[in-house]
Every structure is written in structure tokens, then in C-alpha cells.
């Protein structure tokens, strides 16, 4: 059966930890490995942090997180309604950041890509950004 959760939160640094713990709790019925839990937590942390810092420039705003699980496939969407991204391919390049003064490393998208099976970024300047990620669980033989 398909399971689904939807979380709406204020874009504040203190909610970054909550978002990744919620995602980790959501996948526990899949009996994920420690590594898989870390992968999901990191990817969610990156996307939510980007909304806090880049979309809303740390002034707060609305973030919507949707997670669903069906047949071992985790689907996560993290959406903001902030400034949006002008050049998505450029933004996704490793080490690219528009906020070096905040010591951002430019590795956020690279980590989302490395730790999830798929990553899709939809964005419109002035409207917002939606990050769509998927990860398959139990693909190993001993799974399920």
C-alpha cells in the first residue's frame, strides 16, 4: 500500500534537523541500512537548507515537504516559493555557489545526486523551486 506524508514548515535553520529526522522516521518501515538512512537525511538536509538560505535568504518563508513510499520506492519533493534559480545546470555544478561569503561549499546538489537514485530540479525565478528525489529500497536480494 502507498504511504504518504506532507509537512509544511517555516524556513528556519532550527527546522532543518526536524525535516531530516522526519524523513528518516518515514522510511523506517523499509528496514533501510544505516547508510541508506544517512543518504536520505543528507539529501533532505541539503534541499531544506537551500530553501532556508537561498530561496528565502534566511528571512523565513514556507517550505512544503512531501514524501511517499510505494513498493520500496521513496519519492521526496521539497518545495519553496522563494527567489528561484536562473540557471539550473550552472547551480547544479559541484562547487558552484552564489553565497561564498556564507562559506557555502557548493556541494549541496552534488550530495543530493550522489546519495539518491534520481534528482530533478524545477525552478522559476521569482516563483520558487521544487526538488524531486527518488530512492529505491530493498533492491538487494536479502531485502524486503
Amino acid at each position: 500500500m502507498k504511504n504518504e506524508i506532507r509537512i509544511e514548515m517555516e524556513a528556519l535553520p532550527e527546522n532543518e534537523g526536524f525535516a531530516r529526522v522526519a524523513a528518516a522516521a518515514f522510511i523506517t518501515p523499509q528496514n533501510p541500512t544505516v547508510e541508506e538512512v544517512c543518504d536520505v537525511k543528507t539529501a533532505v538536509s541539503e534541499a531544506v537548507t537551500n530553501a532556508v538560505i537561498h530561496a528565502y535568504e534566511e528571512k523565513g518563508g514556507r517550505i512544503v515537504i512531501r514524501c511517499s513510499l510505494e513498493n520500496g520506492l521513496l519519492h521526496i519533493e521539497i518545495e519553496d516559493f522563494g527567489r528561484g534559480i536562473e540557471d539550473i545546470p550552472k547551480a547544479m555544478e559541484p562547487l558552484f555557489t552564489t553565497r561564498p561569503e556564507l562559506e557555502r561549499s557548493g556541494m549541496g546538489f552534488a550530495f543530493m545526486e550522489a546519495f539518491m537514485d534520481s534528482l530533478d530540479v524545477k525552478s522559476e525565478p521569482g516563483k520558487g523551486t521544487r526538488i524531486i528525489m527518488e530512492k529505491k529500497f530493498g533492491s538487494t536480494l536479502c531485502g524486503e
Partner: protein
Amino acid sequence: MEEEFRIIDHYLMIRLPEEIDHKSCQEISRKADRMLLDSEVKHVVFDFSRTMFMDSSGVGVLAGRYRKVSCFGGKVFVANANRRIRKILKLSGLMKYLEFMEQEEENEKRDQD
């Protein structure tokens, strides 16, 4: 405060918190830079013994401290980083700028077995 800062000889030792993310990083960088003003300090040691989670915010903290101390011939050391943290550091291309404490190399070998 969760992380701890100590100066021993010319080393600034930073015991990092359990979770290194955007929220905890702001404080770590601010405190570290204040202590780096102390002319005695040449190197920085990041102790990950308590750390269970780190995202790309932590990469920025290490890279930023490296930029500061390397100008004066200082080094950035990493101690007690678990396998996950090392994976993050590797992915971010930071390995060549960091010195791993001796025990780390043993961990590395153990992980590969």
C-alpha cells in the same frame, strides 16, 4: 554549547557537535575564527568523535578554516571521523587539503576489509 574549543601548543582543537549542519556551523566558524586570532595558533584539529551527521555545510567550515591557516603554513587535521564523514569529505574533494591523524589510516584499512 555542544562543541568544545581548546588550544594545546599551536593547535586549536575543536570537538565537533553530534550534528554538523547549517544551524550548528555558523557558531563553529564564528568561535573558531575568534580563537584563530590568537597568534599562538597555527593548526586546527577537527575532532569528529561525537559526530553522527554532517552535510555540505560542514565542508564549508573545513574549507574555510583551511583557507585561513594555510596562508601561514598551518594545517587542518581530522581526527576520529567515521566512515560516513570520510565519504562526505572524499566526495567534496577536500581529502588532499586535510591531514588525517594516524589512527585514521588504520580505520581506512579496516573499512576496506
